[in-house]
């Protein structure tokens, strides 16, 4: 569980949902456009900007910014812009660990604010998620947790870059749809979408959950079990189906939370209600609010 620390927040922050966006693109021109607009906005607002590169060489990032008319070299010189490489920073350890990663964001924002910037603005190339990095299977969990555990508490704005040339379409859809706002190319609705709730700790799950979506359900379960929030809620209004194994994963996660607060479920699909009739012993960990 992440320790909650206080960092001075800017009163001019964008709405919470808009500060963690997915960007899907499929060519260099689109990449450069999103890059330039986002970095320019951050520099103009007095924020520190960091681009965490994965497959793109840092020099190329700086050239693209320069080509877009941004004084990238000057920004680097005064410490307002940096282009670190993921493999040498947050992926430098033995595995990707969302808990450690969330802690790093607190450190990074604290450092940016201590240096006099009004906040931190970052871009992350997420292509490593499709490369078999140890712990990479926790990327969806991480993206969902970021909303309540990081963006709700820190003056941080981030774009997650998803390059279609480097990731499968289905995986891009799953990860991009975990963000509350989206830029760039449209993506297909995944079989199961897992995303944070806008206004309270919890998850939105939509689509159809079964054996094929077990990884997404496992991510949702990890968010439920690991959340520091006292109460977690699921909004299932747009979930057409939930199978028994998915319910079992969520029930396990709920049972593993500290305290004895059941996982609250709103607008449960009929399949979940029927499963709870078959397995009433799950009532103590999964509570349907609007029976």
């Amino acid at each position, binding site marked *: 569980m992440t320790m909650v620390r206080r960092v001075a927040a800017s009163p001019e922050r964008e709405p919470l949902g808009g500060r963690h966006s997915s960007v899907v693109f499929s060519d260099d021109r689109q990449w450069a456009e999103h890059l330039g607009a986002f970095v320019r906005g951050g520099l103009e607002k007095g924020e520190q900007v960091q681009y965490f590169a994965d497959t793109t060489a840092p020099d190329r990032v700086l050239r693209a910014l320069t080509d877009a008319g941004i004084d990238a070299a000057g920004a680097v010189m005064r410490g307002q812009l940096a282009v670190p490489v993921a493999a040498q920073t947050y992926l430098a350890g033995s595995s990707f660990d969302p808990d450690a990663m969330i802690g790093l964001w607190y450190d990074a924002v604290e450092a940016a604010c201590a240096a006099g910037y009004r906040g931190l603005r970052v871009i992350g190339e997420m292509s490593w998620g499709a490369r078999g990095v140890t712990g990479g299977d926790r990327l969806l969990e991480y993206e969902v947790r970021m909303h309540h555990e990081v963006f709700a508490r820190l003056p941080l704005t981030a774009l997650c870059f998803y390059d279609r040339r480097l990731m499968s379409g289905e995986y891009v859809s799953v990860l991009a749809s975990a963000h509350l706002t989206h830029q760039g190319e449209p993506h297909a609705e995944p079989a*199961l979408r897992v995303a944070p709730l806008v206004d309270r700790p919890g998850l939105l799950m939509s689509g159809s959950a*079964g*054996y094929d979506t077990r990884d997404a359900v496992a991510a949702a379960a990890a968010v439920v079990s690991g959340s520091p929030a006292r109460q977690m809620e699921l909004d299932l209004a747009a979930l057409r189906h939930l199978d*028994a*194994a998915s319910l*079992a994963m969520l029930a396990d996660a709920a049972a593993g939370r500290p305290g004895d607060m059941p996982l609250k479920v709103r607008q449960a699909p*009929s*399949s979940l209600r029927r499963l709870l009739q*078959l397995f009433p012993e799950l009532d103590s960990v999964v509570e349907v609010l609007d029976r």
Partner: protein
Amino acid sequence: MTTYGSTSAGTGRQTAFYHPALFYGTDDEYVDGVGTFVRDALEQEHSVLVAVPGPRLPLLQAFVDDNREHVKWVDMRQAGRNPGRILSMLQEFADRGGDARTPVSVVGEPIWVGRTPAEAWEATRHEALINVAFAGRPVSILCPYDTALPEDVQAQAYRTHPVVGDSGAYRASSRYADPHEVCRDCDRPLPEPPDAVVVPFAEQDLAFVRDEADRWAATAGLSHARRTDWLLAVGEAVSNSVRHGGGHGTLRMWCAGDELVAEIRDRGVLADPLAGRRRPDPRGTTGGRGVWIMHQLCDLVEIRAVAPGLVLRLHMGLV
């Protein structure tokens, strides 16, 4: 020939598994044979479950009269409409019937006049599996058989019950057969449907298959509530095909009179014939949860081990 008492099926049943078939022709014979079994069990302070067709319940309740509240009464036409879910009910009762020292007595009548041949075969499979599930346990299960049932159904009762009798006397069944052999014999050829929607699937298709099964059932006229059951059952079956049946399978769906049928065919093997016939821990990792759910939600589940794989037919009535 071994005989087991002159008037009651209860003699000698306390210490070991006891599974007699009682053949009856009249209400009096029914009450005499079944009622006496229940009364004896109550006198010996057994936990007692009576699961018989609803119309027969009042006969037995009147017979035990003041002791009726000590018996769990179940309408088998409802609880056992799908024969594949009866064994779970019996095991759950036996498991919860008290501490391990409390003997358990059950009356289970899974086949009645009016059962379809397909239902009777699955009920015969259930009868055979009782012998596997309860082997070595101090449980007595009396199974009444109406002599108005087809002869082939009655003949199978001699193969699935170690002891057979009527209101007169009980004796060892000379035709009793190995339960696994009976189960193999229950794998009767399934009739080909005249027309079916065919949906091949692999893992990446499962969400589409679920949606397609739901859409098709809605178009066929299945009510919303029953469509939930249909979708859960079909969803569990196709998931099992991907997980255990070679990674892919074929779903076929068709209407047959006043019911819908979903057939799931894959390359799996049902290694444990008792899979899905015991109530699972919903959060457990042991197998059988999906098959158990299918049995609970469907009106009939036909299971066939066929070269080279497994065929499940899930039946759901439109009314």
